[in-house]
């Protein structure tokens, strides 16, 4: 027996609405829960003071700095490598067995659990190359962890640029590199930046890959060879060792807020950019 089309439409619409509502509810619940638990310890000094007594007292300033520099190192390494690889795969080679293998490899790499990257980073950067537990080791490990995402999102963004733009660019006498820099990259930039932002989000929230490679020192990092603790690692240690749940939630709240700020900022910049180019 077939349902009356009107009833069917109504049911489908209701089901989809429920799914959306659940998604939104879960999101809001998590954010509200964390902010409510954390808000009691949040004040200006929490942001500007270094942790005292393993994190029982004081603020989280050094972990904020640690998170920022680690993410910065990771993005500075992974973004050029990833975008460069994506450009090579899409603009400088024909689709063949090798490009398919590279793409397959990137997809596999993207699915590897971050703790494996941590172990790899520990063996290669911390011990073999002798960087020790440091911002450099952690940043490099994060870079390799986010590289596949950046490659694949950049590639998709570049592929979605109409082929006719490339033809026009060539027909107006541009070299391949001029075509890439003047036509393809500007058109693909929103997609590329979105991929990089996603990666930044992953880096900020990463614990497993970082704890093995950047260590968990509580002091302010002074060079890329200093060990450093990120906010996510700080949260993990505070909560797991039962040092201070209130400070753990405070850290979590700052983490969530920073991710929100980054996303908002990205959307704002993207809007401005799109308006300028189209």
């Amino acid at each position, binding site marked *: 027996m077939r349902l009356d089309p009107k009833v069917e439409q109504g049911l489908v619409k209701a089901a989809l609405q429920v799914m959306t509502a659940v998604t939104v509810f879960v999101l809001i619940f998590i954010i509200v829960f964390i902010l409510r638990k954390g808000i009691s310890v949040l004040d200006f000094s929490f942001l500007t003071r270094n942790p005292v007594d393993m994190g029982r007292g004081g603020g989280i300033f050094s972990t904020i700095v640690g998170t920022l520099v680690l993410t910065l190192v990771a993005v500075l390494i992974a973004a050029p490598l990833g975008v460069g690889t994506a450009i090579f795969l899409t603009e400088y080679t*024909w689709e063949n067995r090798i490009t398919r293998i590279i793409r397959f490899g990137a997809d596999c790499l993207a699915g590897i659990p971050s703790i494996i990257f941590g172990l790899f980073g520990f063996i290669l950067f911390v011990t073999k190359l002798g960087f020790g537990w440091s911002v450099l080791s952690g940043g490099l490990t994060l870079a390799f962890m986010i590289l596949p995402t950046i490659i694949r999102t950049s590639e998709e963004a570049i592929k979605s640029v*109409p082929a*006719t*733009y*490339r*033809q*026009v*660019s*060539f*027909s*107006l*006498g*541009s*070299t391949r590199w*001029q075509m890439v820099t*003047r*036509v393809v990259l*500007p*058109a693909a930039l929103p997609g590329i930046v979105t991929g990089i932002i996603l990666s930044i989000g992953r880096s900020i929230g990463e614990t497993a890959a970082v704890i093995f490679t950047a260590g968990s020192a509580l002091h302010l990092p002074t060079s890329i060879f200093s060990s450093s603790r990120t906010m996510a690692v700080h949260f993990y240690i505070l909560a797991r060792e039962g040092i201070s749940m209130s400070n753990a939630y405070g850290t979590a709240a700052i983490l969530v807020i920073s991710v929100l700020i980054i996303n908002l900022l990205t959307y704002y910049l993207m809007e401005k950019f799109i308006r300028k*180019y*189209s």
Partner: protein
Amino acid sequence: MTIAIRVKGFSHFFGSLQTLKTIDLDILKNEILGVIGPAGSGKSTFLGALNRMNDLIRKSRTEGTIEIEGKNIYDPDVNVAELRRRLGMVFATPVPLPRSIFENVVFGTRLSGPRHRARLAEIVEDCLKRTSLWEEVKDRLDTSALRLSGGQQQRLCIARILALRPDFILLDEPCSGLDPISTAKIEDSLRLLKRDYTIILVTNNTKQAARVADQTAFFLSGELIEVGPTDKIFTAPDDQRTDDYLRGRFG
């Protein structure tokens, strides 16, 4: 009459498929050569051979020569980017780049020529005037070219070519998506432009060739069936197939 382009025994292949079969053709300077033929006859491939846009297609291969001023454009020492600037190309669907009108016109100029803003502004004004677009857009040069109408976009694409100071203009069915008024405007521009340029116009609208071309070439299945003065091709063609095509018996 000076010969601008001399095509000698030129063949083109995509993989094992031969798309142009030993073409011999002289293109005269400051004339409009109309290229007609049914879909798949090789007329667009012929156009792509002239500015080497076919190079961009996978497994593309050529035999024979195409000479411009006595120089084979398929010689290894030819600068392809420079060659393409000499043979400006207008595509079937207008493709403005996602930039302002101004930036679209000077896109090619910026790649190699002057970059001084005042000089670029002169070029923009001159090229837009010659495609009779200036009056319509002079107050909004900094707005996106994507907001222009189809006919305006196609004239912008021609202006963008003129800014390259080319010797040739290649048009690949430039009016296929346009209304009769926009088409008439473009045909008018072509008649004006042939004073300064040699024009090769690929069209699947035979009447358009009859209206504007000085010489007409008829292509069929990758072969050049015949070429001659447009009047002669349309009134007394040598080959039966040309006559059949023009009378609409096939195609």
